[in-house]
């Protein structure tokens, strides 16, 4: 005979405001099999948990229903409490009265009625719960890090220094990501390359790190502890083993006019190239789209000049499969394409550039070796207009959110410009200056007070190019209440930060959630900021939201800590939600075996003592079964059931709704 205890949580005001908790507790107490129904202000608090533990002992409960917030929030908390009181944790269920009821309904009677229904559903279920015992699965103590920007590098280094193996996969030919392209960094103005390149070398040389550049993850199977990952290594056409990185090949390559990705199309590169001089690995690749040998079959200069014969025109993509226990996603961001802004020239005006292009102009390693010269005619601009929130906070043409870092890098740009062009005018159009961060506001004030940047509060409505080459910028000064027109030589747009193209397909491949802006979703906005809702997959850097370098590095280290924690034991416990076959009734139709997405169901021969085959049935491999229950639904002889979600349990839940 079941003895169920029901505990209704007010969650302070969150549930109590719209749901009559005492009434729900009373109604629950009347339900068949329920021996106690009580309500309390904060069930998750220590006294609340004590109340549950006490009741389990005193009332000899065989099942517990906690009606509170979403189980995604506190199920582990309450199940731990139950276990401490000697009750099998899987005999505790939660009814979701907050997210699914009090927060989404206003009418008190209706909400209360629904709350009672939700409790009844769980009472009927828990009465049919059986004791379950966690399944332990082995953990493969190797981590996969996707993305070789500063976040990926940091995560990889921390994990490697923690003594675990790391596979670091980078799509482009070199590590470094966006940070390698920056001139100097706010708020300290230290040189980006100087602080980054040592890290790039360190991670590449680390004994625990396997570096795979020019490679992409194409398939991810499995689950926490043992993911099976397929990685495609793009053909480099250069044998990294024999190449010495002498550079003879790209000095001689006849195809010289390809816009350099690294220089944001402000400079050219050759068909065989290393993205930038400090690239890691410092070995060139051939861009198959532009190489004459690979497209037209004639040229072959690089092969001729290569002293070590490292050029391999017949190179092909290769695939490798690896097994990892955890994954850190650090795929980063890119800039929103401002060609959607027709009023700013729709991307057709040469001297209207984006933030990265300005970084390259200001960078000593850039196409102008650090001199600010405008793209159209190479002149040094005497007036530069910087426009913030270009595409950000613009639900109409751009993205609705604030891109967070633009205020700071724009201030940095004005300082860099004024340091390089002393008599130049730096004008900034802004809506708000958001400089929350250590030394950030001081930095912006410095730009204005010391380095003489002119800040004008208002958006720009239009930019056009006069025949004399001046860019006419029509803005507003909303503080003075007047329109402002500025004749500029160069305009820098602080384009919105958006996730990498294809971020959504990567998310689908990994089975992690992403928000409406395609940024990856953390498991909990406050308490689990680096985990995803998918166990074993963690987030680092701007793929989760716009972030500056310190934030990205911090999150990367946090993700690394999570991975190291996961790797600290050889095995991990998994929820024992697995399917079971009733071998007596199984007719071996193999429907389950064919549908199982994990190939977790196998043929099993039942033999007699002499070893003669009696018959063959289906049998579930606990280690592989993930508990989706698809097999149960397809079983024609009703011979499979799913622990925790048995037909009996679900049908009982349905029955309560009558």
């Amino acid at each position, binding site marked *: 005979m079941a003895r169920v205890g029901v505990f209704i949580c007010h969650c302070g005001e969150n549930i109590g405001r719209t749901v009559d908790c005492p009434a729900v507790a009373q109604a629950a107490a009347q339900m068949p099999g329920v021996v106690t129904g009580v309500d309390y202000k904060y069930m998750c608090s220590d006294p609340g948990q004590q109340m549950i533990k006490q009741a389990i002992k005193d009332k000899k409960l065989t099942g517990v229903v906690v009606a509170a917030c979403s189980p995604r929030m506190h199920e582990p908390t309450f199940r731990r409490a139950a276990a401490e009181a000697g009750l099998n944790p899987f005999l505790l269920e939660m009814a979701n009265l907050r997210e699914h009821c009090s927060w989404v309904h206003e009418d008190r009677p209706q909400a209360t009625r629904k709350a009672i229904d939700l409790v009844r559903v769980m009472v009927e279920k828990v009465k049919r719960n059986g004791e379950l015992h966690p399944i332990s699965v082995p953990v493969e103590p190797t981590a996969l890090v996707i993305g070789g920007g500063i976040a990926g590098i940091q995560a990889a280094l921390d994990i490697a220094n923690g003594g675990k193996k790391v596979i670091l996969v980078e799509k482009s030919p070199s590590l470094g990501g966006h940070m390698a392209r920056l001139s100097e960094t706010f708020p300290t103005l230290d040189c980006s390359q100087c602080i980054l390149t040592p890290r790039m070398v360190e991670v590449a040389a680390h004994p625990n790190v396997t570096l795979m550049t020019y490679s992409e993850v194409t398939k991810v199977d499995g689950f926490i502890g043992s993911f099976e990952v397929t990685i495609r290594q793009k053909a480099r056409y250069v044998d990294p083993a024999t190449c010495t990185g002498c550079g003879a090949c790209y000095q001689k390559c006849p195809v010289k006019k390809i816009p350099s990705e690294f220089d944001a199309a402000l400079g050219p590169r050759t068909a065989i190239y290393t993205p930038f001089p400090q690239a890691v690995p410092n070995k060139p690749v051939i861009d198959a789209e532009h190489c004459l040998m690979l497209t037209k079959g004639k040229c072959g200069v690089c092969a001729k000049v290569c002293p070590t014969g490292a050029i391999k025109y017949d190179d092909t993509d290769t695939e490798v499969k690896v097994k990892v226990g955890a994954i850190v996603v650090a795929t980063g961001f890119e800039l929103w394409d401002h060609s959607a802004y027709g009023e700013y020239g729709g991307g057709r005006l040469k001297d209207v550039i984006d933030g990265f292009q300005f970084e390259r102009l200001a960078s000593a390693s850039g196409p102008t070796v650090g001199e600010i010269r405008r793209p159209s005619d190479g002149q040094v601009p005497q007036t530069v207009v910087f426009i913030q*929130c270009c595409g950000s*906070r613009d*639900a109409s043409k751009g993205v609705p959110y604030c891109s967070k870092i633009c205020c700071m890098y724009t201030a940095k740009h004005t300082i860099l410009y004024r340091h390089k062009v002393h008599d130049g005018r730096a004008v900034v159009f802004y809506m708000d200056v958001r400089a929350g961060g250590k030394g950030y506001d001081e930095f912006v004030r410095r730009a204005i007070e010391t380095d003489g940047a002119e800040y004008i509060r208002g958006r720009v*409505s*239009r930019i056009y190019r006069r025949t004399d080459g001046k860019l006419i910028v029509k803005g*507003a*000064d*909303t503080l003075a*209440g007047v*329109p402002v027109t500025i004749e500029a030589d160069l305009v820098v747009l602080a384009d919105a930060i958006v996730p990498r193209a294809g971020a959504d397909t990567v998310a689908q491949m990994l089975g992690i959630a992403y928000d409406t802006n395609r940024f990856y979703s953390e498991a909990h906005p406050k308490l689990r900021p680096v985990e995803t809702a998918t166990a074993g997959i963690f987030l680092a850097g701007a793929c989760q939201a716009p972030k500056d370098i310190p934030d990205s590095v911090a999150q990367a280290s946090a993700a690394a800590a999570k991975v190291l924690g996961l790797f600290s034991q050889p095995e991990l416990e998994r929820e024992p939600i697995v399917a079971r076959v009733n071998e007596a009734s199984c007719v071996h139709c193999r429907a389950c075996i064919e549908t199982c997405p994990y190939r977790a169901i196998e043929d099993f021969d039942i033999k007699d003592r002499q070893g003669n085959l009696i018959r063959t049935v289906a049998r579930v491999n606990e280690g592989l079964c993930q508990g989706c229950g698809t097999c149960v639904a397809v079983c024609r002889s009703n011979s499979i059931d799913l622990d925790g979600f048995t037909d009996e349990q679900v049908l009982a839940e349905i029955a309560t709704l009558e």
Partner: protein
Amino acid sequence: MTKTAQSTLAEKVRQATDVDVAECYQCGKCTAGCPMTRYMDLTPSQVMRLVQVGDEAAVRRLLGCRTIWSCAGCLTCTQRCPKDLDPAAVMDVLREMANREGTVPHDLKRVLKFHKAFLKNVEYAGRMSEVPLTSLYKMTSGDFFSDVMLAPAMFLRGKLPLVPRVIPGRKEVRRIFKACRHREDEP
């Protein structure tokens, strides 16, 4: 949840235009793009702001301002508003209110008079004709001598038909004017 407007004025504006001024974050793009600002005493973004404020002083400033009468209705503000608001429509509502309250600045009465002359003309004939319109406008506005030089030239080019255009259905048009005017007086 039902939104509550920031002010009674804001509420009136929302009912007439579906524009919820609470959504305006004062970026100033409307002001930046407006071709008429030099003839305005409030910038378009200030107009939006004052509708947000909506207190007595704000209403007084709005209904008495030159801006609403200087709006050319070119829709540049509306086209470029990052919040998909419609400042041009807000101007329309405010003009209508100002006209009802009789708070039009003296030297801009001629804009109002032009609109009124235009509508009188249409109410009478169902269509607008240059001659009655201009004469009526000039009489009411007292602005007699502007453009007198254009008239003969227009006439010569056959652009100034002296016979006013009148349509059969003008009675019906008058009734429509009456019906709308009646609504206009509704509180």
